[in-house]
């Protein structure tokens, strides 16, 4: 606390006015008032909404989540039927959103990196092609791109009755792409466990290899060794599981092709649209990241006699990553959020399922609050992960 502002010798007792003129008191007071106003505004909005809903006889609350959904969803990663609850319908939507977002993030990173590097190519044609790609797809609204792909895919391929078969077992139709998948078997569970064990072993081998290199300077062929451990273990598990060979082949039966794995036109349209659109931004991020590393770094590595491939991996990329990761995070977040446009082409994502739920139950505020908090959660998770990754990649100052 500060000293009293009154001059020494002033016998007047401290009044209210003196308190209000005290800077410290004021600072606290202003904050209390600000918080109070925010709470008041929030309380007013909530109570007013509840009052109005009650006036209009609109029911409120999240009780509807346990009720039977009674509508079907075309693409589900978990067991779902019309008999399931609204809560599991929303779960199906959430998983579909996560599926398309994750795949989109991986693909747009790969494609974006290729085009970003291509934009810096010394080859004129490659450079110009990459520029045309980036400038075209970056400047068309993503919703229109989704409509474009969705209009294209069903009309470009034939009806299931005259499906195209470019590879044995792979069928292209107006209902999407079908491919053979192995019939469920215990062996595949073993293989998954083996893969997890392999990852743990690789982690420890890598630690040991780094220690040895630090001590003796001898490099260890980590990539080859890692690949060997992984493939070897998984293959062993496959053999141990009895080496099943039975496949579920897609074939025309009745109206549709049954069996195999189906990639629907809706999913394809959303995935292609989001990937192409976001990859143009990733390309720009990658290009700027590489250009941000001064040429002197290459020259310094050269003069130390470091191989060019090693210099790229150990000198240039770590520095360009530091520039690229924060804007890349933004693009990943954008892709996840843009995936909500999937509702326009009928892909059953979170928004689509929530919309249907909202309509069948009339609980608009509840349904919207659910999917808004889920998107917020997804975005924060992505951010957290990317921040962690950024910290890991940042150059450690010694």
């Amino acid at each position, binding site marked *: 606390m500060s000293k009293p502002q009154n001059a020494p010798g002033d016998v007047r007792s401290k009044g209210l006015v003196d308190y209000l003129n005290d800077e410290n008191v004021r600072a606290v007071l202003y904050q209390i008032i600000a918080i109070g106003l925010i709470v008041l505004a929030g309380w007013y909005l909530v109570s007013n909404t509840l009052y109005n809903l009650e006036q209009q006889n609109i029911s409120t609350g999240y009780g509807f989540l346990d009720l039977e959904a009674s*509508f079907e*969803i075309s693409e589900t990663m978990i067991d779902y039927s019309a008999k399931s609850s609204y809560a599991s319908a929303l779960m199906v939507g959430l998983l579909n959103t996560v599926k398309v977002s994750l795949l989109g993030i991986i693909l747009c990173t790969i494609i974006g990196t290729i085009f970003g590097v291509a934009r810096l190519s010394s080859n004129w044609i490659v450079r110009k092609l990459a520029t045309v790609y980036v400038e075209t797809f970056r400047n068309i609204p993503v919703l229109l791109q989704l409509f474009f792909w969705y209009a294209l895919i069903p*009309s470009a391929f034939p009806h299931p009755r005259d499906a195209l078969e470019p590879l044995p077992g792979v069928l292209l139709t107006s209902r999407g792409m079908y491919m053979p998948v192995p019939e469920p078997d215990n062996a595949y569970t073993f293989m998954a466990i083996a893969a997890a064990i392999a990852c743990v072993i690789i982690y420890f081998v890598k630690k040991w290899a780094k220690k040895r290199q630090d001590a003796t300077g001898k490099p260890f062929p980590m990539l080859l060794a890692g690949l060997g451990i992984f493939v070897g273990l998984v293959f062993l598990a496959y053999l141990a599981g009895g080496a099943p060979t039975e496949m579920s082949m897609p074939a025309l039966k009745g109206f549709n092709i049954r069996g195999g794995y189906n990639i629907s036109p809706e999913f394809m349209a959303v995935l292609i649209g989001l990937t192409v659109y976001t990859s143009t931004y990733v390309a720009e991020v990658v290009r700027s990241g590489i250009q941000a590393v001064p040429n002197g770094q290459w020259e310094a590595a050269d003069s130390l006699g470091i191989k060019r491939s090693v210099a790229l991996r150990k000198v240039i990329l770590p520095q360009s990553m530091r520039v690229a990761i924060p804007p890349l995070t933004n693009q990943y977040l954008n892709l996840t959020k843009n995936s909500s446009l999937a509702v326009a082409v*009928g892909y059953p994502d979170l928004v689509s399922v929530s919309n249907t739920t909202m309509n069948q139950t009339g609980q608009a505020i509840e349904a919207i609050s659910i999917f808004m908090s889920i998107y917020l959660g997804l975005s924060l998770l992505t951010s957290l992960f990317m921040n962690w990754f950024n910290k890991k990649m940042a150059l450690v100052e010694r």
Partner: protein
Amino acid sequence: MKIQTILAAGAMTVAAVAAQNAQAGAVLDGIKAKGFVQCGVNTGLPGFSAANAEGKWEGIDVDVCRATAAALLGDANAVQYTPLTAAQRFTALQSGEIDILSRNTTATTTRDAKLGLTFVGINYYDGQGFLIPKALGVSSATELDGATVCVEPGTTTELNLADYFRAKGMSFEPVVIENINEATAAFFSGRCDVYTTDASGLASIRTQMAENPADYVILPEIISKEPLGPVVAQGDEQWSDVVRWAFTAMIEAEEYGVTMENVDDMKANSTNPGIQRLLGVTPGMGEALGLDEAWAYNIVKQVGNYGESYEKNVTAKLGLERGLNALWTDGGLQYAWPIR
């Protein structure tokens, strides 16, 4: 002193905003103040509500809004339209964005009781059917096991579809697209084997949107009851009365044989006490509803009676007979509550 002033001003603002809560009679007063009815319609379903070549909305659902405007404001054209998808419609009504929803909407318990809505009448008795390309050679809905079905989300259709296939022990794959134009485009491109909605909607899609209507057939099964009608939000009973009786007046006018053409003659010369009451020659009905005594006269004069509206929109455009929507005296279900 300053702080006290700010606090007082803040308190007054809160009080003033709080006073804007929903009040009985608010919708009706709002319409009178702005001078037009805000009407939620389908984004494009010929015969029910669709914009014609000049951009004017027409259809049997549009006529309900026009009749309401004629009764309340004396001018059937004092209507503004908000095209809505099935998924948007109830929120638009609950939030007060529209005054009346006249968009081929099925009356159900949940909607009436849990969504805070009031169904004021049934202007089209319908049932759900299936539209399918002739080339598939299907003659009955019981042969649809394994089919891919295009359907609009947030509709009773979507629920009936799941119910029907479940009851028959059949499976299907839904393709759920919100916008009706996108959904029909998906159907015509072969994305789905079947399109399902109300039979009238199927007729509309087949005759108005298919390149060659003869290539498509509506299966004989009708799998549900779909009473379609105009809806208003709960909370303004006076307003729901106006809509209810404006629509009833259209049916009553048909029962009495009062048409757009003979309404002036009827008003001047008819000695039938029922017609005199309807057209305001004998006053009382308008006053009871808080309307001008010429309310029903305005409806018939400017919009026509129910039969005329049906003939002009549904029969002429979709080729559908009256069927269930004939007057009760002709074996149908349309039956006006007496205006007296």
